[in-house]
């Protein structure tokens, strides 16, 4: 039972500041995912919550205690590391029970708690093995088991799935989500994989260069990215961006193509903008594009196709930039074929060309 609050938390290594005064409020029982490119300060932030790194400024609260100066063992948290960090000289049983043993629980209590965790994570057949004799997925489960045995207030995960192969990763993702529904603890989860973030999170925190760019639910950050960075980071394939200008109530692309402007941007008349639209909102005509009342028609030549089964990604050129479009219910498409595409302008995004920030519709 604990909320986590980060208030103006700063981390410096010597004179190098790697986390810049971030603020984050995490609800009790919430699953929050920190996501961002490698080196943006996710692990550092997580390790500050864990107490493995000193904080250089600000306050961290867990529950209603300020924990700035508390050792990790006094914070009632548990953590799953990227390399699992299982104790190689102990069996699975001993690994799971270690924290309780340190806390001087009786052997019968330890056994019961370990048994319970082992059942939740289907580890009962592996109890006498050492970590060296386990597969990657099994080690992963032991690491999670070690984390849940103690019923901590907060779980911290640092890229726990990045050492697993793609199939196992999908499988473990589901297990982690189930685990959260079972234990209902607060979870702070770090990943660089936006799909993992989208699928797991109650709320996503997108970080870049030690700053928080946006906090929101997965759908929220997908549908309303605050800037081009978030827009390109969240969603796959990344959003298409086209340089444009608002002129006479229209969006004029570099080659002069005029698109009807969505309502609310009249105040931005004359401004240079970045026009953003996802592949999902550019489709060849007659291919199941959901009807909208603001459609633009453009003709493009397809340069490359990526068939994915239920859909095919089409690469084409629009106004001098490469764009990706999607074809649902796909039919074979030849390279070099010219098609008429619909762009759903209701679903487009308009960013300030200079700052990259989303322009608010008025």
């Amino acid at each position, binding site marked *: 039972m604990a909320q986590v609050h980060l208030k103006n938390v700063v981390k410096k290594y010597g004179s190098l500041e790697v986390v810049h005064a971030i603020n984050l409020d995490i609800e009790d029982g919430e699953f929050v995912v920190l996501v961002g490119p490698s080196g943006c300060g996710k692990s550092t932030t997580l390790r500050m919550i864990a107490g493995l790194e000193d904080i250089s400024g600000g306050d961290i609260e867990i529950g209603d205690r300020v924990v700035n100066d508390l050792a990790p063992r006094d914070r009632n948290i548990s953590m799953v590391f990227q390399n699992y960090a*299982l*104790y190689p000289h102990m069996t699975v049983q001993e690994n799971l029970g270690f924290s309780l043993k340190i806390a001087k629980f009786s052997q019968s209590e330890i056994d019961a708690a370990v048994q319970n965790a082992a059942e939740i994570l289907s580890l009962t057949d592996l109890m006498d093995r050492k970590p060296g004799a386990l597969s990657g997925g099994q080690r992963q489960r032991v690491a999670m088991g070690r984390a849940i045995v103690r019923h901590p207030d907060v779980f911290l995960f640092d890229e726990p799935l990045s050492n697993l192969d793609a199939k196992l990763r999908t499988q473990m993702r589901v297990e982690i989500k189930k685990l959260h529904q079972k234990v209902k603890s607060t979870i702070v989860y770090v990943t660089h994989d936006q799909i993992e973030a989208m699928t797991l999170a109650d709320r996503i925190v997108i970080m870049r260069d030690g700053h928080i760019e946006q906090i929101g639910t997965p759908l929220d950050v997908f549908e309303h990215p605050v800037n081009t960075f978030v827009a390109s980071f969240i969603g796959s394939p990344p959003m298409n961006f086209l340089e444009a200008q608002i002129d006479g109530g229209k969006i004029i692309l570099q080659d002069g193509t005029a698109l009807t402007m969505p309502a609310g941007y009249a105040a931005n008349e004359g401004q240079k903008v970045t026009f953003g639209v996802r592949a999902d909102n550019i489709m060849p005509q007659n291919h199941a594009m959901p009807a909208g009342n603001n459609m633009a028609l453009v003709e493009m030549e397809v340069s490359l196709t990526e068939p994915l089964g239920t859909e095919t990604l089409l690469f084409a050129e629009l106004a001098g930039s490469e764009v990706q479009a999607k074809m649902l219910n796909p039919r074979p498409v030849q390279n070099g074929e010219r098609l008429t595409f619909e762009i759903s302008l209701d679903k487009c995004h308009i960013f300030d060309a200079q700052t990259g920030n989303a322009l608010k519709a008025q």
Partner: protein
Amino acid sequence: MMQSVSAQNRKRIAKTAHFVGLFIAMSIICIPGLWIVLNSFRPTVEIMAKPPVWIPNELNLDHYRAMFGGAGEGGVPVLTYFRNSMIISITSTVIALLVGMGGGYAFARYHFKGKSAIFVGLMVTRAVPGVALSLPLFIIFARLGIIDTHFGIILAYVAMNVPFTIWLIDGFMRQIPKELAEAAEIDGCTRWQAFWRVEFPVARSGIASAGIFAFLTSWNEYALASQLSRSTTSKTMPVGLLDFTSEFTLNWGGMCALAVLMILPALVLTFLVQKHLIAGLTFGGVKG
């Protein structure tokens, strides 16, 4: 068909060549040792014979009997030397290991000012030959009044071994992911507990091999000990070997017998910990 036969032949030749090569190498390494063992069991005439007698005519325990016998019959205080050697080697090894663990841990885990300078400095001390230090050491120890004491020799050996144990243990500690100790801290350990309950057991093999090296260095050291010891109160076994020399004669048989007694504990120790030694030398299998 032809090809596979010639390939098989080539394989066989390579195997034989390996075997012969290994045999020669092992002979060069082992024959002096075996020669010592052999000489300790046979009469002096046979030892001195020219050309050498390879196959002994007679084996007996005379040299051992004489060595343990009274002073008049060529006896030396073997048990006292053995005890001195044991006390000095074990104590200096334990101290060098403790310091090495502290130092190696610090070098592997912490950043501090002048870290690499200190590290290089430590290693440079190993570049100075011990004998070159023996005279200055002798003078200082004489002034301090610790010539011919266990304490003096232990001090010298600790100084000699510490850079080495630090270097070895630093190497082993570096291979242990620091997340292990962090996981232990999150699991409720203090830094101290994390070291003793997780990092130490994981590094055990490495530490054991560092210990063996330190022990053998002390056990076999001659140059310094011969300067720093005067009498039976502190003479170690290597120094004791000189008791078999006198003005005009060398008691080769006695010397060999004492040398065999010296080799035995080192062999036994090495066998006892060989599992750790191998694990220590192939350290790095700790991922997981």
